[in-house]
């Protein structure tokens, strides 16, 4: 009986194999002469070709187009109708009497975006690392419901930025949930999103809430990789908890913290959607970051001239910043790898 069942199974498998075999033979018919011509050594390039084509189509060509736009002017979208070449857009972006005072710059919105982005990244990344480490240290301990809390902290990462923005808008608006609580305790309403002195703090807080889970996970992985015998030895020596943290945990976490720092910085520089939903970049321009400047200048001008060239030039500048951060990440991760190999 078993034998018959196997025979039937094999029969169907052979039938199913026919189209695959046919396909493989067909590929072989093409690949064999190709291999003859270019040699076995070069065959990996052939296999990479489909991926490279997609990468070229959707990354390299748009990058080139963006560069082209940044060197052209006019309000037309089609290449053929634009004036080029010109460095006008870059001249306009960097035309400032004093870079420290955006009001003296021709493109003051861009420079406000630059300063807001720097402020946002410094505080968001700094606080994010602090809270990620704090949370990871707590979640690494044997607390009740550890699995549940790990999920809870990671949950916001799964939410769409628009959902995050809308949820917190509902909570932080002047007539929102948070102010209702403040009022119920006799306090005055606070304009968390519309007062310039509160708005940036609010968006930093929301951004940390939304992304902290991911970085906590990285730090948690780092904590779990620290050999427990180091802690045991330190405890046997009667070392205080603070000293253990600063002399063992933190130094051994440093490679992970570096990754967190660079990833969070890259993400911070690119931040747009949740802030756009939450405050629209306002009040005034107090929460408007560089990406919003690019979006507004190129695509959301509400009837003004859609300045694709200026938006492209600004995005090239942003691209350089991101490239620098990415190279930093590559450098440090390679450094880390080589140190591991040495060990």
């Amino acid at each position, binding site marked *: 009986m078993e034998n018959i069942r196997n025979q039937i199974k094999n029969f169907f498998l052979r039938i199913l194999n026919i189209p695959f075999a046919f396909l493989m033979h067909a590929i072989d018919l093409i690949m064999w002469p190709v291999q003859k011509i270019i040699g076995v050594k070069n065959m990996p390039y052939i296999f990479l070709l489909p991926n490279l084509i997609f990468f070229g189509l959707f990354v390299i060509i748009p990058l080139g187009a963006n560069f082209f736009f940044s060197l052209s002017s006019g309000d*037309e*979208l089609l290449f053929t109708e634009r004036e080029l070449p010109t460095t006008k857009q870059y001249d306009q972006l960097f035309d400032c009497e004093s870079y420290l005072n955006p009001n003296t710059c021709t493109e*003051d919105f861009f420079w406000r975006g630059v300063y807001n982005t720097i402020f946002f990244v410094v505080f968001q990344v700094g606080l994010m690392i602090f809270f990620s480490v704090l949370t990871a240290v707590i979640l690494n301990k044997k607390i009740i419901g550890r699995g549940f809390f790990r999920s809870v902290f990671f949950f916001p990462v799964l939410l769409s930025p628009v959902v995050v923005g809308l949820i917190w808008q509902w909570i932080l608006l002047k007539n929102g949930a948070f102010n209702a609580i403040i009022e119920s305790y006799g306090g005055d309403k606070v*304009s968390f999103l519309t007062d310039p002195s509160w708005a940036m703090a609010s968006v930093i807080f929301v951004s940390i809430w939304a992304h902290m889970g991911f970085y906590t996970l990285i730090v948690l992985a780092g904590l779990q990789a620290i050999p427990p015998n180091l802690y045991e030895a330190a405890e046997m020596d009667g070392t205080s908890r603070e000293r253990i943290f600063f002399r063992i945990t933190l130094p051994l976490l440093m490679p992970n913290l570096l990754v967190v720092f660079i990833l969070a910085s890259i993400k911070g520089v690119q931040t747009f959607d949740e802030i756009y939903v939450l405050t*629209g*970049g306002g009040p*005034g321009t107090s929460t408007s970051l560089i990406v*919003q400047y690019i979006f507004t200048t190129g695509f959301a001008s509400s009837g003004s001239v859609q300045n694709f060239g200026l938006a492209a030039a600004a995005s090239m500048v942003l691209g350089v910043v991101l490239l620098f951060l990415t190279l930093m990440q590559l450098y440090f991760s390679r450094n880390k790898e080589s140190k591991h190999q040495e060990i």
Partner: protein
Amino acid sequence: MNFKFILKAISVALVSFSLTLISAVSFAATDVRIMWYGDGDKENVPIAAQIDEFNAANPDINVILDIVPYDAIMNTLPIQLAAGEGPDIARVTDLGGLNKYYADITPYVADPSYYEKSFGPFLNWYRKPGDTTSIHGFHSTMTVTGPYVNKTLFEQAGVDLLGPGATWEEWAAASIEVAEKTGTPIPMAWDRSGHRVSGPAISMGAKYFDSNGDPKLVDDGLKAMTQMLYDWHQAGTMSKDLWGSVSGSKYHAPNDWWNAAEVVFMMSGSWQIGRFANEVGDDFDWWAVPAPCGPAACTGMPGGNALLAFNANPAVGKVMDYLSSKEQLSSFIGQVLAIPGHLDLQVDYQTDDPNAKHALNTFAGAVPTIDQVAFDLQAHVDNRIMFNAIISRLGQAIVGEMTMEEAWERMDEDVEKQLKEKYGG
């Protein structure tokens, strides 16, 4: 024999299939895509019903109605058009700004003179400078900007409503008095829009153009009005929470606060009538009041939205003829409670709401009082550039990012910069 039979059967099947395909292509209905933004169901439902009716009566044309948010009309549509991917027809408010994309449907409409007779002055708002003959579409509704007051709050406070001729300062003082007496948090709220600021600015003497007819934004009139708005924000007459809740030139309306009776005086326009009738209901009495005065005029801004064609073909012409017909327009305007853009239209407004009826009369009565500068500004192709410069810079000054002097300087620079980018030089 079998083989021959199979061959014959295949041939017959192939021929039949080809014929079916050819006939399907020949008799396929022509698609006409309309990009439509509506002020909620009150506008979307009537237009959808009209389109369904048209499709049923014209099986050779298939009108597809894409209902989109207003932001899509302002920001997505221009990109689509620049990329050559726009709809056949769209309902737009930036009437002159998109004129390079409009198609001339004169050869495809049944009676071009009907458009001239019915929508005459508005047709020039869509045309390129120098063009006096093309037909691109028609005015769906006409709008006039102007204020509303919460009449119930005025009555509760025992403050009389001001009549025609009252100034902006007098209205502000009355609104503050009502707010204080009734404990209402916001005496005054305005739509965050340069268009809304422009009517009052013209009343204060703003001219917007130099002697050659070229844009010249900042003058004493505009300074007076924007300074007044700035001062009202600093004094708490207007809440910074509204204009501060977005940045740049983004439009924002205070409807939520108005509906919650937290605003005494709201500067908006006639398009809100249907919305207020639906949303405010019996909660409080609201009245539209005549445009407050400045030293130069007592004017609001005209405006409105138009259905404009981006492709010219017989199907588009037929759809335009249908939607612009007296019968369809009258039915639509009657349901949405708007002022018609048609110059000779009898409308039976479908409402029993006395507030809505009063507001319709007030705004319709305001049309003859609109200042010529306001009409010229509305007709200018680059008016949005000026509106956006006003609102984004004023917004920055209000939240303390720059002084009013710097804001005025920036307004002029913004206009100059944008015009240079658009026209070269």
